[in-house]
């Protein structure tokens, strides 16, 4: 798994590449929690390069979203690919989160609703 962050003014674009499974998700979750603890509140998660996600990955995302909500923050997703998209579908995550076709669209939406 590869985890990159890019600060874009008031929001943070996080790119997660590779796999989010039982082995790798704890690291991603820790890094997201670290960003929240450091005061970041608006996240765009770019999943363009994510090949695989299991329920462990979804649990990490859900835990992060709950943590953010408690801080009045927001998290949205962009660029879901084939398998990852299917997993979001069968878990009901598609109706739970805002999902965009591009990072730009996600950024615009977050800025608009602030």
């Amino acid at each position: 798994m590869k985890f990159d962050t890019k600060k874009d003014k008031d929001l943070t674009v996080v790119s997660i590449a590779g796999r989010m499974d039982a082995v790798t998700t704890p690291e991603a979750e820790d890094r997201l929690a670290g960003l929240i603890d450091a005061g970041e509140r608006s996240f765009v998660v770019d999943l363009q390069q994510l090949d695989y996600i299991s329920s462990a990955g979804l649990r990490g995302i859900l835990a992060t979203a709950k943590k953010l909500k408690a801080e009045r923050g927001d998290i949205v997703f962009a660029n879901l690919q084939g398998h990852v998209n299917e997993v979001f579908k069968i878990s009901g995550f598609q109706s739970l989160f805002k999902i965009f076709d591009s990072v730009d669209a996600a950024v615009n939406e977050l800025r608009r609703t602030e």
Partner: protein
Amino acid sequence: MKTISTTVLPAKLEYLSAFIEAVTKAAIHGGVDRKRLFYIELAMEEVLTNIMYYAYEGTEGDIGVVCRSDSRQWFTIEITDRGKAFDMTAVPSPNLTGTLSERKIGGLGIHFVKTLANEVLYRREGDRNILELKISLHSPAVR
């Protein structure tokens, strides 16, 4: 049914990828469409991590995985452990439509397994949990 592979390894997260690799190879050999390998990988991660986290309650134990195929209709994966009795087929489906506050952190993995395999059968034999996932070689993966 012909046995394609048998894998017995400790119920520890560090062996997850070895188990999944063995099952994926067996699935290809057993005639499973490559497009469905992803579903098998996903279902296996859920079943195996469940056992690794909960079955042996702090003590050590193994997991056995046997893959079989009849080359016509079914590819089956039988997962055995000697941990505490647990029947995932009896666990109710999670709420998939709630708001963020209503959604629970757990329960999704078992839902995946039931969704991704065509049939999931459980039996307790002596001190063993035996879970069988049946994957059709023909019908679509996700119901």
